[in-house]
Structures are given as structure tokens and as C-alpha cells.
């Protein structure tokens, strides 16, 4: 890619080559795709959600297809923080792109301890997952109310100098309030949105399709809701927004920038198209070139509401 248009964006102190980040839980730790396309081109990679101890995850079935989307109930299957730091992070850092560690815990202390540990690594940013709908304790419970968000972010903030991105849940009455709480408590960015809590039923067995009964809805189905929330949050906070939810194409990504996102994460799209991130980066570049845009960053919030 040539240098004009300039695709660089900044999330606080973190500079991304371009606004496209592979989303947490939909790109592993980058290993599976490392020989599929050149990952150094990516704006960034966000790790699968990491917890203090290893987690085996939920029993299968863990996936249900829905109209233009899917439900998942993986339940944060991961090797635990120590193995993440020793085995996965070095590999991710070797890829030549910005690396974000997505972390989740059951208690405030879990998050604090993980942030302290990550502070001593070369990870570029920490994404506090306050929005996983697939685990019994913590996580989404923190993220669904402004007080929950504020309490957690305030407790964690002193533990690290790393940029803190707070990933919020759409399963809330007002995303502005939780975003404002994150900003006021010291977050460097908010990531919007995680999955909507959903359910699918097999009428033959009269059972939920997912063994976990409910799961997180992602994919194009949720794009209108995610886009609205990014737009709302953009009017409410001054910190950068990392937008996501149903992005499949470059056009989708540009919609999120216009609504107020500084960067985007691409999740479910990677499942149906392993080259999704690359295709989206290419399409954004072409678009910027076509309309004679100098800096992609100028699109952020450029939506003209009626």
C-alpha cells in the first residue's frame, strides 16, 4: 500500500497502521492465519479473551447459526494468563502489528492482577472485557451498569501504564452511561460492542441449541444496533471508540468510522472469510483513494445527522 491516503489512526498513545483490528475470540492468537495472509499489514490483533487461570470453556454445542448471524457460547476457553504471556504473546508480538490483550475475570482482583502482570510485558494495550455473556460470574455483570464499569476501571487503572480499552456490552439500557463511566474512570478508549445475549431453540428436542442455553449474538444481524451505539457513545465521550459488530465489508467499516469510531474490529467475518480483514483494509484504501481523502482519520464522526 502506498502512503496516500494515510490510513494511520491513533487510539490515545497507540498508533495503528490502519483502522482494522482482528477482534477478540475470532482470530485465536494469530497462529492459524499467520500463513494465510500477511498479518503485519493489520492495524492490530486482539487476543482471545484471557483469564487468570486456564479455562476449558463450555460444553458443546457452542454455536448456533441465526439469520445473518450466529450465537456462540465458547465461554472463554483459553490457556490462562501465564501461558498467554509466555507462549502466545511473544508470537503475536513477532507479527509486526499492534497487539491488544483481551482479558476477563470473575472479580475486581482478577482484573487487577492481570493488568499488573501485563504491565511487565510488551503488549501494546489491554482490552478489559466487561461484556462476555457466556460465563457465570463477573465480566458482563461489571459491564452492564455505569457503577459496575466505574468501580472496575477505577480499581484497575493504577495497576498499569498500558493503554486501557474498555469493552462494553450492548445488553444495557444506555450505552452512553457506561461509556461515560469508563472515560471518567480513566479508560483510554471504549470498544463497542460485544455480543447481544440471545437464544435459539430446537423445536424437535425442545432444547436450546446451545448447551449453555444462551449465547452471544454476532454478525451482520447486530450491525444496526452496534452502529447506533457507537454513534450515541461518540456524542457522549471524548476518548476514542473502537467500533465493531457485524462488519463484513469495507463499506461496513466506513459506516462505523462515520458514526464515530476511530478504529474497528472485525469479528465474525473472519469465520466466513479468512481474508476478511485484508479485504476490508483494501476496500477502505480504495474508497479513500476514490473520494480523494487524505487521511482516513478524517472520517471519524463525519456523519451528518439530519
Amino acid at each position, binding site marked *: 500500500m502506498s502512503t496516500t491516503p494515510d490510513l494511520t489512526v491513533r487510539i490515545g498513545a497507540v498508533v495503528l497502521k490502519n483502522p482494522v483490528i482482528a477482534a477478540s475470540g475470532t482470530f485465536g492468537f494469530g497462529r492459524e492465519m499467520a500463513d494465510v495472509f500477511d498479518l503485519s499489514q493489520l492495524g492490530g490483533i486482539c487476543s482471545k479473551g484471557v483469564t487468570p487461570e486456564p479455562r476449558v470453556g463450555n460444553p458443546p454445542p*457452542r454455536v*448456533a447459526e441465526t*439469520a445473518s448471524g450466529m450465537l456462540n457460547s*465458547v465461554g472463554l476457553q483459553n490457556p490462562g494468563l501465564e501461558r498467554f504471556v509466555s507462549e502466545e504473546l511473544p508470537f503475536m508480538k513477532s507479527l509486526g502489528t499492534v497487539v491488544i490483550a483481551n482479558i476477563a475475570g470473575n472479580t475486581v482482583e482478577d482484573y487487577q492482577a492481570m493488568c499488573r502482570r501485563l504491565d511487565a510485558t510488551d503488549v501494546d494495550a489491554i482490552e478489559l472485557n466487561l461484556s462476555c455473556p457466556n460465563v457465570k460470574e463477573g465480566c458482563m455483570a461489571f459491564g452492564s451498569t455505569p457503577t459496575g464499569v466505574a468501580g472496575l476501571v477505577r480499581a484497575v487503572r493504577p495497576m498499569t501504564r498500558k493503554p486501557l480499552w474498555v469493552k462494553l456490552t450492548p445488553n444495557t439500557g444506555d450505552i452512553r452511561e457506561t461509556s461515560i463511566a469508563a472515560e471518567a474512570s480513566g479508560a483510554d478508549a471504549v470498544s463497542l460492542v460485544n455480543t447481544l445475549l440471545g437464544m435459539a431453540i430446537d423445536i424437535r428436542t425442545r432444547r436450546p441449541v446451545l448447551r449453555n442455553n444462551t449465547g452471544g449474538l454476532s454478525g*451482520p444481524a447486530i450491525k444496526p444496533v452496534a452502529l447506533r451505539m457507537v454513534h450515541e457513545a461518540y456524542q457522549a465521550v471524548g476518548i476514542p471508540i473502537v467500533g465493531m459488530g457485524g462488519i463484513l*465489508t469495507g463499506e461496513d467499516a466506513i459506516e462505523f468510522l462515520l458514526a464515530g469510531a476511530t478504529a474497528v474490529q472485525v469479528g465474525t467475518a473472519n*469465520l*466466513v472469510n479468512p481474508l476478511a480483514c485484508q479485504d476490508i483494509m483494501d476496500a477502505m484504501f480504495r474508497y479513500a483513494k476514490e473520494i480523494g481523502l487524505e487521511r482516513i482519520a478524517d472520517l471519524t464522526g463525519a456523519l451528518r445527522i439530519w
Partner: protein
Amino acid sequence: MRTLVRTGLVRSVGFMAPGQARMVVEEPATASAAQPGQFLEIDCTPAADGECARSASLRAPFLRRPISFCNVDRVAGTFTLAFRVSGAGTDALSRFRTGDRLSFLGPLGHGFTLPATGTCLAVGGGIGVYPLLHLLRAARERGLGTAAVCGYRSPEEAFLLDEFREVSDRTFFASDSGGLDFTGHAGAALEAFLASQTPAGPVTVLTCGPFPMMRAVAGLCARQGHACQVSLEERMGCGTGICLVCACKVRSLERGEPEYRRCCTEGPVFDAREVVWE
């Protein structure tokens, strides 16, 4: 770089039996690379040329579908997919027409491991017989002995019999409702078959089909001391190892603790001794 996303040309589509479709696709690189027991993640709407991810509003159904190689012709550069129409995706797939473009990812997964010597004894039930055809052909090409034990619901729903005869030293066809070599399910058929025959050299059983059937087969192999590989089935998201939804419960032979492994990457084929049969 590894090419994961490919587009093939549909050569033919048809039904072998009611609800049982067969599609021949031309894509030489895929045909060359395909290993027995591997699968493709298939996009169930015809692709515009070269296109992979179409706009959201045209992806219907949304996810890809895993389908195994049933047959491969490296010379012609084609492979055959055989599948049961069981929902929106396979229904859409069965409506493809000659000349359509098929978008897929693959070959994917860890397939069957052919033994160095002896006989490959393939045991399939229902749609589980499909990948065994490719397996037996590959085994024969390697000079191994081949035998097929296939279980069907009824003679009317018994498909690919001639194809199995062509690649097997011996075949033994079972039907739940009688009318073939054996009356009963594939597990029982295997027992009868092994009681009546002594295949050449050590026997490696390779099985694919309903879970209870494979459990029976694995149990028999354990008792009789045959190596056994089973092809598991789990709902998939990506097929490429990145989403972790396709968890299969297996017990590591070294560590012994049950753990979840990815059906799409560490599987779909596992050593029968690893599988947690619950």
C-alpha cells in the same frame, strides 16, 4: 502463504437417492491436496467469479457448511461431495447447477492416518459412509488391503454400493430393514464381518457415522485389539481453528485429563482411545 479460500467450478449436481445429493467440482489444486477424512467449509450460495465474502444481505445461509471429500479424481482435477439435504444450507447446495461457482475453504482438518501395512477396514453408517470412499481409494493406491462395512437404513437408501465395491477387496452391506448382506446396524455388521473373515495383515478400523455406532465400533476394536480411528462431527463456525466453537471432548493419551479439542483442526479424525464416549 497457504491458499485457504478457493473457488471451484460445479461440473454436475444430482441426487443419488431421495435427499442424498452429489456434486462434482473442478478445482485441481484442491483435488491434489485432499487427504482422506479432510473436509471443506462450503459457502451455500453460488459465488460470483472469485468472490468470497459477499455483502451481508446476500449471505444466505450465513455460515459455511462442513462437507467431507467423498471422492477425488486428481487426473481430472475434480472432487465429489456427497451430502444429505438436512437443512437450509444443504438444500441451497443441492440447488446449484452445472457451471455455478462454488466458494470453499480447504482442504481442512486432520484426516485419517493410513497404516503402513495390512488392511484398512472402513466402517460407515448413513451419511458417514461418504468420506470412506475417498479413504479406501487412497488406501488401495498405497497397496493396502481394503474392506468396507457400510450400514444403511434400508436398501432403498443404500447408495454408492458399486463405488464401494470398486475400491474394496471385500464389502459387507448392512441394512436396518434387511435386504442386503446383513440385517442390523453397522456396528453389529462389523462384528459379524470380523467373525467370518480374516483380513490380510493387521487391521486398522476407520469409522464415520452416528455417535452410538462409532462407540460400538470403538468398543469392539478395543476388545479385539484393532487400531481404530473415528471421525467426529461437531457444529462449526470457521473450520479453520480460530473460533473455538467446535469443541470435541477427548482425553489426551499422555496427559489423561479430558479436554476440549477443535474438531476442525485437531480433528475431525481422532484415535478412538482418545475419545470421551459420553
